């Protein structure tokens, strides 16, 4: 199985992004997804600059994929996706059916991100006929659904399967910007407040439980997903790529830990999931649950 770094979901400064990808060149990830997928106002790095950054990463041996906006609200958003699709060099990940259609128009290979709803083998088969070469499983699905989809689709090596396995889970997209709202600002004058929250803004309930993390128009899980214990199961199912979603802290350590686990070293030091991590979705349970920590996963 290969290891991928998903697109940065947060709003980071250009400096932070460039530093991050400089470090990436030396990390043991195989595939790097580049681009803005959440908010069209985040323009620290423009589409053509992402392509340039892609060239640098490709030169250091990474497979580069350009990733695109998830929620398209106007023609300018669509134009931004089109620009990425038209890059002429790299594969493109569509996070919306508009991106899928643009790739079909250009007869280009299609990669779908986790926000494209592929919930069954018949959907997977149809998109394969349209040019799908890799799909990322929707985050709310788990191992049993995945095994069934892959087995029933019976596409062999024609379509690669990728699983979002580490980092805060993208859970929802809205017309409303929750970060701006928390500052009592309208979205049109958000003052780019997300820049001040490189790991998003925590939203707790009245019992201090970190329920969600607000990332502009995106709502993320309060706990970080961690499927490092499930790599063997993924391999058995036929998963080809394991995705780590960038977080502002500890990214290199997580990459290295996952790489060691992929190389067969048992994750002994992490017998249990940390209290701020979750893995429920993978076990067909509420996403926020911690199942690996349970004696009997099946009873979790």
């Amino acid at each position, binding site marked *: 199985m290969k290891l991928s770094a998903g697109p940065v979901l947060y709003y980071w400064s250009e400096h932070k992004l460039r530093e991050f990808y400089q470090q990436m060149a030396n990390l043991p990830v195989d595939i790097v997804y580049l681009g803005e997928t959440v908010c069209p106002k985040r323009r620290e790095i423009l589409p053509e600059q992402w392509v340039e950054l892609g060239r640098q990463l490709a030169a250091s041996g990474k497979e580069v994929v350009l990733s695109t906006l998830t*929620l*398209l*609200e*106007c023609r300018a958003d*669509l134009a931004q996706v089109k620009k990425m699709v038209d890059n002429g060099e790299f594969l493109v990940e569509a996070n*919306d*059916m*508009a991106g*899928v*259609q*643009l790739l*079909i128009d250009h007869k280009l290979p299609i990669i779908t991100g986790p*926000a494209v*709803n*592929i*919930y*069954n*083998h*018949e*959907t997977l*088969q*149809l*998109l394969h006929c*349209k040019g799908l070469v890799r799909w990322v499983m*929707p*985050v*709310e699905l788990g191992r049993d*659904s995945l095994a*069934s*989809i892959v087995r*029933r689709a019976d596409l062999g090596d024609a379509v690669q399967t990728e699983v979002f396995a580490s980092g805060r*889970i993208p*859970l*929802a*997209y*809205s*017309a*409303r910007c*929750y970060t701006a709202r928390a*500052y009592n600002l*309208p*979205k*049109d004058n958000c003052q780019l407040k997300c820049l001040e929250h490189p790991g998003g803004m*925590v*939203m*707790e*309930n*009245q*019992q201090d*439980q970190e*329920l*969600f993390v*607000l990332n502009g128009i995106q*709502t993320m899980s309060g706990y970080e997903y961690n499927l490092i214990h499930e790599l063997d199961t993924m391999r058995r199912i036929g998963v080809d790529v394991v995705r780590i979603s960038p977080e502002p802290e500890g990214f290199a350590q997580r990459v290295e830990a996952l790489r060691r686990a992929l190389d067969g070293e048992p994750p002994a030091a992490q017998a249990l999931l940390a209290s701020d991590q979750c893995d429920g*979705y993978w076990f*067909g*349970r*509420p*996403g*926020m649950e911690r199942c690996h920590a349970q004696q009997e996963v099946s009873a979790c």
Partner: protein
Amino acid sequence: MLRAAVDAGADAVYIGLKDATNARHFAGLNFNDRQARQSIAYARDRKVKVFMAINTYAQPDTMHRWHRAVDLSQELGVDAVIAADIGVLAYAANKYPQLNLHLSVQGSATSVKALEFYANEFGVRRAVLPRVLSLPQVKQLAANSPIDLEVFGFGSLCIMAEGRCFLSSYVTGESPNTFGACSPASAVRWEETDSGRESYLNGVLIDRFAADEKAGYPTLCKGRFRANGEQFHVLEEPTSLNTLQLIPELDKAGIVAVKIEGRQRSPAYVSRVVKVWREALQDYRRTQSAFTVKRDWMDALGSVSEGAQTTLGAYSKPWQ
């Protein structure tokens, strides 16, 4: 319920089957085969159309249920099937090329290109837009759309792009996509405590109400939480969508239908809301540019709204 909508003047009514194949999977709702037949006959006799909602995402091991729902729709002769799942749309389009297909709001299509996909691949003729576009964006899309568009006019306010919201499954394990339910009633628990009445969803505190406050249903996105050092309705207040005042603009934009949410409600609610909308639409037809929203319409709708407040939601830029 269906009769209430038909009698009050709806042009079309959505129905769903009694299983997880539609996005209103709640006890006491929806139809078995026999009820569906009777209801369709009732609507037909009154020249009202019936649309079958098969708009959840099909699970691989039970796809036959979604197929069966499509088969049954064809057999019943519904006026359209409304679906979101690509596999379900493909099945319907291949097996019944004459079957009229609509794209559900759960399909989350917000751009010309996304609409094109469903039109090209499955011959979809109408799409319901997610509640994420502002009025100018709706107009722009309608001006360029390859297919007819329907928008939400009145009812609950989903604040996330439909078909792409997993908040409910993150907390309860059941989502609109997989199970046809959001913040399901089976996960709700109420507790009276010294600090007030507390609402929980699968053990997670959603809100806490003082004695003089009206306690709303614990929909995940409408609780009071803390963010940026403040406690407030971080995502959204308990409000309902009400777009009566947009009727002229929506009509001029070429929107073919407005959708009223009704299936989780009482027949009295449905009857009242549909009557107001029917009256407003007729009034608009008569008065055109002189159309104004009447106070008693707003009062009637306000009295049945969640939290007794209504909003234009994403149609209005300041809401965003």
